[in-house]
């Protein structure tokens, strides 16, 4: 697949999940899992007479993103009505922003830097909008296309969204993915978005080949799927071009199960959103003071963190970038290093082994770090450093820990990974046995025969691989310590 002059632009819709309430009303933003239509008020239900009032924290969140994406910030915040009829839109217009006369997005003309083959690339951000989420539609009989009617739940209606639109600067599905990953990491580092929440991040992708018509693929739910959908589209469109078929300008839907894009209903006429400034929401001045205030509170952003990782921990560009691509991962790395140092070794283990298996097993990173905790990982580091295990063995241990949710030490012993004549290691097992057999230990203080019992327990635990003499020696050492002799 040669580079057929591919142009890709992305529109990312992200919920500001850190907010407690919706964008224009004080309904809770925690709508997931609630019974339908139990998280609604006159405003987000669009009842006659209800009026919107903007959430001040949403404005600050938008400004944070604007600053992180190096955008030009508008000096006034104007909301626009975007008109179209649809069952999930209670007012049959969406309060949003528009880049046109009488209105403007909250921020414009920024960029994100992504890592591509051969270096770094600046991807321009066209604009950032604040807007409200519509409700949710369920298709009770059949699919979107076949269901005889719909069921609507307005719990999500009115949730605060940021729409972040890129210029068509991306040249491959891989770059698109890198863009989403970077953007997601920035939003995570700002503390504004938890991308693991269902529906928190949605992407519309626009792609054109060789200067041809632009195809829009709507509502893709993950960075991975974005890459897949675009890859598929390129193949589909290339085939069409080869056979002389014209590629239609249309909107398609990514079927995440069948892994294909399918055309959505073709509209007979051009949509006309009839934008005009929302008269219920007077323009709000964005003062320099407010921008300053927000700017002071900006946490460390991914690019800064990557630099710091490289400088402070001596990591390679590549390692640092991968670690910082997910905030949970970067946080995990730093915690491990706090525990046991060895940043380069830790970094390599996390990137090459931990992350690799987490991806393959499709576990959420936030869950995986609770299984292979920093403490656990540090045990591996310790063992590796002290030649108790080698790197090959480490690579086998990690997937097993993740898969079976067992301790590192348990896996190590159960799978006979180490020669248990190392005194320190053996001492730990002795300690465990003593803790598990307090009565026997007390007996052993008086009765030497009981020592044999304890030795036996150690042998049992290590499946007979412990050095019996050494074991005996260590148990006696322990007895001496505790009896004060």
């Amino acid at each position, binding site marked *: 697949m040669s580079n057929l002059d591919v142009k890709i632009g992305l529109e990312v819709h992200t919920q500001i999940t850190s907010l407690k309430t919706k964008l224009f009303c004080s309904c809770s933003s925690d709508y997931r899992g609630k019974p339908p239509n139990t998280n609604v008020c006159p405003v987000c239900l669009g009842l*006659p*007479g209800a009026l919107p009032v*903007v959430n001040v924290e949403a404005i600050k969140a938008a400004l944070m993103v604007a600053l992180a994406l190096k955008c030009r910030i508008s000096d006034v915040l104007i909301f626009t009505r975007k008109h179209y009829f649809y069952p999930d839109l209670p007012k049959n217009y969406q309060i949003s922003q528009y880049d046109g006369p009488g209105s403007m997005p909250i921020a414009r003309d920024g960029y994100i830097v992504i890592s591509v083959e051969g270096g770094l690339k600046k991807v321009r951000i066209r604009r950032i909008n604040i807007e409200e989420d519509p409700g949710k539609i369920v298709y009770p009989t059949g699919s979107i296309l076949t269901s*005889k009617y719909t069921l609507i739940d307005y719990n999500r209606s009115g949730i605060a969204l940021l729409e972040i639109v890129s210029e068509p600067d991306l040249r491959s599905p891989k770059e698109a993915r890198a863009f989403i990953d970077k953007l997601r990491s920035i939003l995570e580092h700002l503390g504004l978005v938890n991308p693991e929440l269902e529906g928190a991040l949605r992407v519309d992708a626009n792609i054109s080949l060789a200067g041809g018509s632009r195809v829009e693929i709507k509502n893709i739910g993950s960075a991975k799927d974005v890459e897949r959908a675009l890859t598929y589209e390129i193949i589909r469109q290339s085939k069409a071009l080869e056979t002389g078929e014209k590629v239609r300008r249309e909107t398609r839907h990514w079927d995440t199960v069948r892994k294909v894009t399918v055309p959505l209903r073709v509209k007979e006429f051009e949509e006309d959103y009839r934008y005009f400034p929302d*008269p219920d929401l007077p323009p709000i001045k964005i003062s320099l003071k407010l921008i300053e205030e927000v700017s002071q509170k900006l946490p460390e952003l991914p690019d800064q963190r990557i630099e710091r990782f490289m400088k402070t921990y001596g990591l390679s560009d590549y390692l640092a970038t991968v670690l910082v691509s997910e905030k949970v991962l970067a946080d995990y790395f730093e915690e491990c290093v706090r525990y046991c140092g060895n940043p380069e070794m830790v970094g390599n283990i996390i990137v090459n082994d931990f992350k690799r298996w987490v991806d393959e097993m499709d576990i959420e990173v936030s869950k995986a770090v609770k299984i292979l905790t920093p403490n656990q990982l540090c045990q591996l580091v310790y063992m590796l450093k002290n030649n108790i295990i080698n790197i090959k063995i480490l690579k086998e241990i990690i997937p097993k820990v993740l898969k079976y949710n067992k301790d590192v030490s348990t896996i190590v012993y159960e799978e006979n990974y180490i020669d248990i004549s190392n005194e320190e290691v053996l001492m730990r097992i002795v300690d465990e046995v003593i803790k598990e057999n307090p009565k026997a230990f007390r007996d052993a203080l008086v009765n030497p025969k009981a020592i044999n019992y304890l030795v036996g327990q150690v042998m049992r635990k290590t499946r007979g691989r412990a050095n019996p003499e050494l074991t005996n020696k260590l148990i006696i050492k322990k007895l001496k310590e505790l009896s004060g002799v």
Partner: protein
Amino acid sequence: MITLGRLIRKGATELVELFRSDPRLIEEYVVGTYEVIDRVEDLVRSYITLRPLNEVLADGVKVREMLTNGFKGRLAGLLIAVKDVIITKNLRTTCASKILYDFIPPYNATVIERIIGEGGIVLGKTNMDEFAMGSTTENSAFFKTRNPWDLDRVPGGSSGGSAVAVAAYEASIALGSDTGGSIRVPAAYTGVVGIKPTYGLVSRYGLISYGTSLEQIGPMTRNVSDLALLLSVIAGYDPRDSTTLRVKDLDYMKFLKPTPMKKYKIAVIKECVGEGVDNTVLTAFSRSLRRFEEEGLEVLEVSIPIIKYALPAYYIIAMAEASSNLARYDGVRYGYHVSVEGRTWDEVYAEVRSEGFGLEVKKRILLGTFVLSAGYYDQYYLKASKIRKLLYDEFMKLFEYVDVVVTPTTPTLPPRFGEALTDPLKLYLLDTYTVVANLTGLPAISIPSDIVNGVPVGLQLIGPRLSEGYLINLAYIHELKSGLKDLVPTVVSGYV
């Protein structure tokens, strides 16, 4: 009848005092009001929804008890008629439209909360032009309201029902809404007082939107004192309405002084007293001017040529906003409904909206959609908004050396039924003098100027932003001099 009439004839401010000293009078007052309603309602038809007497009496009893326990509500015991465009909790609210024929709101408008908080009692919802679109109340989907001064004439609109309820003594005070003159025009036609407050003074939370940037809820009463009282209660900042103003002083009662509180300079706009105005109206207007001059106030003439573009600019903006505000009526969450199964949304919505909306509403939505559509936005909506800016600037300049602008409220006497509907523009022209206040957001009051051939004529006063106090002062003075307060129209004269 005469004993019942004794309470009904009293003004609201007086009643509140009476009830405070003797709360048991509330019952007599409520019964008396319903007796009047029994006799005149079939003729004038102000109410779309009238609460049953026993329910309202029960409310009255509650207020009586509160008063006995020291409650000092400023509207305690008063019966209020509310235009059916204002949301009332658990009380049907229809906007005089089929599309909301059975809508029972689950919440109260802010103004209703404030009224109830002061002990006021809502007795019913009044008729109006459908979705406030009209100037005669002839566009109601349900029935016509008639002018109690002449049953063959319109009461004005769109707050016709509220105007008549108050004019015909079917309530003490009423709430209306004014997008382009909808309080002032019916006030003028029925001989009552009505004010459109400064934009942002009164909360629109719970006002079913038609022209968002133009409209305000306002009081409609039989005299200026009652207006000042009701305005003092409903005005003020509301955190649920982003367009409300943070105004400190909301006591309008202190402007009820019989002499000018300032040496007001009064301006007459040349373009508002020229052609198109009935002679009868002009005569009444001159009489009113003389009354002010007799108080030692200066009256001068000014010219605002751009004012002739106010009307088309107003309608463009109002219709645009209407097309947007009425998009939500699709029958899915409330209102007129058609079965959805098996049909797509555009089919179902088109059917609901085509059957549920009246013709005038449909026209305005279509035109509003047009002026916002791609390719026409600049030429119409944008340009109309520029005219709005010019008008605003002109009035700001004017008010630098003038305190009040006066005009006749309407160019003609109240038309007979059907007269204003022969031509689409005829209806719109009734708003000629009133739309300016909506476009500029300035406060404007209409008071009775004269009774001509048994039919009232109104005088309009427009002031600078937040000058309601001075308008009330001038209105009060005019009322004293003209004696035109608490008027009794022909239809009611036997009963009060």
